[in-house]
């Protein structure tokens, strides 16, 4: 009895620390970022950094000195990156990979929506705690970006809940694992007419959420000195960079889990690992593509874009879902 509890505990600990927890997030997130940088470089006809470059950056930053400015609130300043990273990894635990999720039945899509706020909030509070006016401007922009992304994200998630609920006959379905199971059994959501605009909208939200071009106004390094991270150096900065990488992974795998959960050959092992990984990489490549071909927008343009174009797409999808298409 005690042995089984112990083993169970060990299993969950393994989930948290190794797969799909920290180690997995660390490796895959970093790799995705590396691929992103490489692809952007190739699209600009450059050789580009090695794919392992984010790892080098991370370890270098770990070896640097950490400067806590005299004006900063020390505890908040140092704890913010850690909390953000932990919260992100926990979200990754909830995202089902082809029906498998480490902790299923603990959070639904609306909860995920709010859990996604925590890392951003941690970054914002850390920036605020640093006392730098650059960070102040940066956090203001980051918050506006969050508001901008929220509306389309909400509409998309409601549309998904309605579509899956319709198909399952329950009216509504908020549970992530239910959505994943539905897709495994009945094919991907993307095959539904109503979900196509939603998928496009969600794909447009990912760069905003992760702060990549053209929506990286919050950390515009050329105008506001890296914005929120202006005063961060050394290991805390490394943790922030890691968080960013994990966020890319989280958003892309959430996208895949929501829309492409049913793509595959039918063999669970292959689907679970290879197809899912391919989908995630493909999504990441799409984001890199957008990154490479666009220039940074102004913050009010970011807001306008999200609340008109992207929200419009999401709204179309919601309307279609409402009428059962």
């Amino acid at each position, binding site marked *: 009895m005690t042995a089984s509890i112990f083993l169970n505990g060990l299993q969950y*600990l393994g989930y*948290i*620390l190794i797969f799909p*927890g*920290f180690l997995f997030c660390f490796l895959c997130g970093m790799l995705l970022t590396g691929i992103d940088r490489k692809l952007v470089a190739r699209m600009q006809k450059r050789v580009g950094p090695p794919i392992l470059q984010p790892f080098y950056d991370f370890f270098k930053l770990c070896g640097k000195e*950490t*400067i*806590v400015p005299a*004006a900063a*609130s020390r*505890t*908040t300043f*140092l704890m913010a990156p*850690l909390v953000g990273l*932990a*919260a992100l990894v*926990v979200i990754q*635990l909830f995202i089902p990979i082809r029906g498998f999720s480490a*902790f299923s039945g*603990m*959070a639904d899509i*609306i*909860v995920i929506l*709010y*859990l996604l*706020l*925590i890392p951003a*909030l941690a970054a914002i*509070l850390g920036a*605020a*705690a640093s*006392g730098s*006016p*650059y960070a*102040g401007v940066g*956090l*203001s922009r980051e*918050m*506006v970006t*969050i*508001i901008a992304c*929220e*509306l389309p994200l*909400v*509409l998309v998630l*409601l549309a998904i*809940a*309605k579509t899956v*609920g319709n198909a399952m006959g329950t*009216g509504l379905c*908020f*549970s992530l694992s239910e959505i994943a199971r539905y897709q495994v059994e009945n094919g991907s959501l993307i095959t539904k007419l109503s979900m196509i605009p939603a998928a496009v909208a969600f794909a447009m939200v990912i760069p905003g959420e992760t702060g990549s071009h053209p929506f990286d106004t919050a950390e515009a390094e050329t105008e506001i*000195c890296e914005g929120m991270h202006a005063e961060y150096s050394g*290991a805390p900065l490394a*943790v922030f960079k890691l968080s960013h990488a994990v966020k890319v992974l989280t958003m892309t795998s959430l996208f895949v889990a929501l829309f492409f959960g049913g793509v595959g050959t039918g063999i669970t092992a292959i689907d679970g690992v290879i197809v899912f990984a391919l989908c995630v990489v493909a999504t990441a490549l799409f984001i890199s593509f957008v990154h490479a071909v666009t220039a940074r927008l102004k*913050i*009010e343009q*970011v*807001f306008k874009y999200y609340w008109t174009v992207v929200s419009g797409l999401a709204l179309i999808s919601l309307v279609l879902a*409402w009428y059962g298409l």
Partner: protein
Amino acid sequence: MNFANMTDYHHFPIYAIMVLFLGAFIIAASGGKPSKNPNNPAGFRAWIALIATAASLCFLIALIRPVMLGGEVIAYWMGSRGISGGYAIGIALEVDALSLFFALLIATAVFVSAVYSIRYMVHDDCVPQYYVLYCLLAGGVLGLVLSGDIFNMFVMVEILTFAAVALTAFRTKVYGALEAAFKYLVVGCMGSTAILTGVIMLYAQYHTLNLAQLASLIPGTMNNATKLAFAFLYIGFSTKAFIVPFHPLAADAHGAAPASISVLISGVLTKSGIYGIMRLTYFLFQTMGLGRMQFMLVFIGSVSMFVCVTMALAQHDFKRLLAYHSISQIGYVLAAYHAMNHTLFKGLLFLAAGAVLHETGTTDLGKLGGLSKKMPHTTVLFLIGAFSISGVPPFNGFASKWMIYQASYQKAVDTGNIGFLLVTVIALVTSTLTLASFVKVSQSVFFGQLPKEYENVKEVPFGMRLAMGILAALCVVTGLFPKSVTALLTEPAAKAAANVGSYITSMGFKTSLPAVEVSFVEAGVWEPINWLLILCIALLAVTIVAVAGKYDRVSETTSENVETKYQLFYGGEENVYSQVGGGDLFWGFKHNWRHYFDFMHKLHSGVVNDYALWAVVALALAIVYMMIAL
């Protein structure tokens, strides 16, 4: 009357009310001479107020077992004059789960605020009189929610309006306090008149003032006069709840009143209005198309939510911003059972604002900054409140908002009403906007740079931190155990609201209304405890790695000038005081909405005539809606 009879719990409601009025009387009778103790200018009177509020809270807690768990409805006839010839002759107190739910909230807020007041009011004069009004206000609100008599409700409304107006104007030197009190009085008086008109029109129809009897008589005898009465009553209680279009009054009153009173205005007064509206819609007028009424309430709730949250984003004053948020959250309350959490986190936030005001003497967002270094405990407590109100998991605001999203979307799907879908979207977006404005507050008050003049600011006294700590602890606990809280408090209250029949019969009247079974189905899943556990493990893992890797290593510096190294980076310039904060933090958002903000700014003109006009228009619209839609 023997002692055993006196300790019967059926007497507890009247004890809970009377102990407060008695406290007010004793404090008033003891004269207005301030005591010599600089840390407590009211002397023993503060303790009397504290004991009175604590006793009141205890009486109500003792009622949880029979009323909440046992499902009993306590009917208490004053002077033992009950029903005669089928008509209620005496004045009754009537406590069902809904009343008790609100009463508990009120008593908790009043008690915590009393704890806070002792050290908070040290800078003021006339503090004994403050406690008189304080006890009157508390007693009035408690009387309102426990009353079973509609005219008594009106009297209690007047008492609490009076005490609230006087307390709003209490700091007469504060910028705009008199003006705020006067506006509140004028519009509040219009509201009271509306309530009285409604009451008397009901009396003319049914010749009774007892709530239960009215509830048993109204079904089936609905006519235009009762609809008119409902419109009057609804608008009257709306002015007390400050929902749109009465929100500017709340903003003015909160900004001017002492923080301990702001807590009562937002956590207690608005609840009394909400309670009145709920009693009306669910008990008295439950046969007049509940679906349409619910939709109207939810619609007005959403408008309140959105209008007030955007108004809050444009504010420059800490307390005024909180005031608008208070009303914005009242929108959620109207839509569902968010009331308890609202009282908790809103109280906490106002107390934090009061702490800032107490130490620095200002609540202007443009002047403050960097207080987290000087007031670390207040900062943490404020952040808990801010996270709660913004609906960040795992705090209590999230738990209740999350239920609201599920419920409203479920409702939209079940009824096919697109309006409810809109409500879900507005609620979700409002939540993010709330977060945004609290990011603004934390950036402009607690983080960022510390202005020179606040370098000697100290942490607030323990008594004030204790009061905030109680509320913060409640916020966290109710956030972590939403299911238990639902089972213990909100579910009985919700069932009571739907179950009019038992309310009427337990008072001794006959009714044809069947008993209703309410069941709660939740579409989503959320287990905060497990989530928190995982988060803690994850955080622990990260922290261990970080500490082991000398996360905050500071190497031997190679530069000669250590000071410059730890200065902020200003593009190479020497450090100057520069604080990003105040009203324009979210420029990117406001720029896109500039026409809306300009319009709203012009609309909230601050002229009392305009607000009175809004009240009249609202009354007219309510009458038209009742006449046409029902």
